[in-house]
């Protein structure tokens, strides 16, 4: 399951500090939602689209449930297939394959076995779209990194976060379900385009992090 579907959800890892994910997210979402609704009403009235806004206000809710229902079958199917793959040990296998490659990305932690284990398991879960597994593993790695430089993001921690904000999921199953529910016969024909875009995005993210690490030195 993609990470974005678990917003505001609970994580097995407790969040100890006030600089919190959930609170920030909730406040931001309230602001965004209120902003969207208010802009719609004001702009709709000014532009003479009041009637359309009124109709849309009650259509959206029905549309949302309809979308979720038409998506449900395909999404459940993929979650089931992923569970089969998980039990086959695919995630562990992939994680072992990735380990040497990732050592280059995190030179400060190359010799720290436990941190590297968490990072490679995090990346492999991200690739397979196992968001529920990826986040706790990533957080575990982030905490071990933060122990070395309390309160300040080290270059490795920045890299870890940047890599997790870029999507590397090999099978975007939610998007495929949305396309299928819109009547698409071949929902996975976007795969090559998604891989291309993901590769460019991750590449640019890593490059940006590397370049900025030189410009943005920590002052002591």
């Amino acid at each position, binding site marked *: 399951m993609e990470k974005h*579907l*678990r917003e*505001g959800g609970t*994580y097995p890892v407790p*969040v100890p500090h006030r*600089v919190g*994910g959930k609170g920030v*997210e909730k406040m*931001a979402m309230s602001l*965004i*939602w209120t902003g969207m*609704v208010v*802009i*719609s009403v004001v702009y709709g009235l000014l*532009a003479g*689209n009041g009637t359309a*806004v009124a109709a*849309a206000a009650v*259509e*959206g809710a029905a549309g*949302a449930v309809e*979308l*979720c229902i038409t998506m449900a079958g395909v999404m*459940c199917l993929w*979650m*089931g*297939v992923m*569970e089969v793959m*998980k*039990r*086959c040990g695919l995630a562990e296998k992939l994680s072992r394959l990735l380990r040497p490659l990732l050592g280059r990305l995190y030179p400060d932690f190359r010799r720290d076995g436990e941190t590297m284990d968490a990072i490679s398991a995090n990346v492999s879960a991200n690739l397979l779209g196992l968001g529920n597994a990826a986040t706790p593993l990533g*957080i575990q790695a*982030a*905490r071990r990194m*933060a122990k070395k430089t309390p*309160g300040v*993001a080290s270059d490795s*921690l*920045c890299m870890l*976060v940047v890599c997790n*904000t*870029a999507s590397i999921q090999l099978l975007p199953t939610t*998007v495929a379900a*949305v*396309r299928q529910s*819109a009547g698409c016969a071949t*929902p*996975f*024909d*976007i795969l*090559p*385009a*998604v891989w*291309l*875009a*993901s590769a460019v*995005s991750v590449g640019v*993210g890593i490059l940006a*992090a590397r370049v900025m690490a030189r*410009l943005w030195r920590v002052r002591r």
Partner: protein
Amino acid sequence: MTELLFQMVAPLIIALAAVWGMAKRVDVYGALVQGAGEGLGVLIRIVPAMVGLMTAVYMLRASGALEAVGGLLGPLLTRLGIPPETVGLLLVRPVSGNAALGVGSELIATYGPDSTVGRTAAVMLGSTETTFYTIAVYFGAAGVRKTRYAVPAALCADVAAFLAAAWAVRVVFG
């Protein structure tokens, strides 16, 4: 041949997982049903958020405000090769995954899943994450306040993903 392969991705992966599971003596059917059950739970949890967000997205669209912003940024986006209709998706993607899913699925339904706009929206959704949410969760859990360049670097990756998504759709689908 490659086209057929990508059309057959879904059944191939399903069959592969099943055969591999049998070889590893995994309870294939049990795992499938358990995973599917968990999927249902996830869906039920996102329905309330989708109800709220789709209401706002439908209203915003009906008011004409989205079109107005698209019109403002349109020339710039067109120059970058991005369809201006996707402007709402670009703005909301880094902030909220559910909202992005709402905007994206509305675009896909309106313009059709096999239109350029529909495909670009799908690729954008598939090649990006909810950047600010992820940053908040990670740094929150690690107790880090000085995030240094993490936010600008992550946003670089997002912008690259949007540009690359539009470009990749042009390259792959002509």
